[in-house]
């Protein structure tokens, strides 16, 4: 009970901390923040339920007015902006990512990368595209077109999530709860 609680809370804090690491920019100028990498890791390391809880906790604190998002953003305004879906979809993204890692007992780095692509990109973009289509008054395919530029960066993050998860499993084996 205590371990679950502290791991969930510390992963929420880790996602916040990752927002403060300077952005790394891809070759063609699309900036990517490390925060969604944190969401993928919440799923691959903590598993479906706890990973989703960590993201839920993070979003609740953003809504309450803490500046936890990259660039010190936060507050209710985030939920009225076009990118709302890319935040609200985090718990579902972490849940699906964690669910796949829990069920598919293959090579951890590979499984975690694939799970992160499915959960952290596919599932998250469904939420993100719906959010953009509603706030910008566009149809779903039009909104999807607007976010395609961010997919390469997220694929890189998914591969990194796989590598980091397998490194964590070697250095902190007891704490990778998704394979516990």
């Amino acid at each position: 009970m205590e371990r679950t609680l502290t791991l969930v809370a510390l992963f929420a804090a880790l996602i916040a901390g990752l927002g403060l690491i300077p952005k790394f920019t891809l070759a063609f100028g699309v900036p990517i923040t490390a925060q969604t990498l944190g969401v993928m890791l919440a799923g691959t390391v903590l598993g479906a339920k706890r990973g989703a809880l960590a993201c839920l906790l993070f979003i609740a604190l953003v809504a309450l007015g803490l500046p936890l998002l990259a660039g010190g953003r936060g507050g209710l305004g985030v939920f009225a902006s076009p990118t709302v879906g890319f935040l609200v979809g985090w718990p579902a993204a972490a849940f699906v990512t964690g669910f796949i890692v829990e069920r598919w007992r293959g090579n951890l780095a590979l499984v975690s990368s694939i799970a992160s692509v499915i959960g952290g990109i596919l599932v998250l973009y469904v939420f993100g595209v719906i959010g953009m289509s509603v706030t910008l008054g566009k149809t779903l395919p039009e909104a999807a077109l607007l976010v395609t530029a961010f997919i390469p960066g997220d694929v890189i993050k998914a591969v990194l999530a796989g590598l980091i998860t397998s490194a964590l499993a070697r250095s902190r084996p007891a704490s990778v709860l998704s394979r516990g």
Partner: protein
Amino acid sequence: MISLTSPVETWAHRVPAGVKLAALSLATIGLFALEDPAPLALAFAGSVALVLSGGWRFAGAAARSLRILWPFLGLIALWHGVTGQLAEGLAVALRLLAALTLASFVTMTTRLTDMVAVASWLLAPFRRFGLSTRALELSVALVVRFTPSIARKGGLLTEAWRARSARRAGWQVVMPLAALAIDDAEHVAEALRARGGVVPPEHTG
């Protein structure tokens, strides 16, 4: 940690948080129901007047929170300029501006403790279904306490990287940072257990 509440005291700071949040919800639903640019322009003007009622410094801070909309406003202008549906584009832009201004206004005029009070009031019915609000409060406190600590450790890892490499640190610091967060979590869990744990004594038997 610094919250986004404005240090500039306005009249709206004294309005109960629940009232502001309920009004914001209704206003946002209303904004998305409107289709015509004229009433939306009126709504945006109203939200600007609301923000200006807090004084120039307050309004300046509120205007900064609108900066994230610039790329989207540019996109809308481009899109609707090309397709020629100008009225529609104007409506979308005004709706976004008004909704974001109102939401920022509520966040800036409501203290974190008041927000937490509304949240726990909203969650109270779930206590009956076994939701432990104590565990929730504790985890909120842990995130608030450990975010600066993890950010500091991230900074130290980046500096250590810089001392050894000519290139900038990026994703390489994420793995050790995650390991440090896990270590912190294990230590705090141990400390909590040593102090009687999260579950109140009356439930443990």
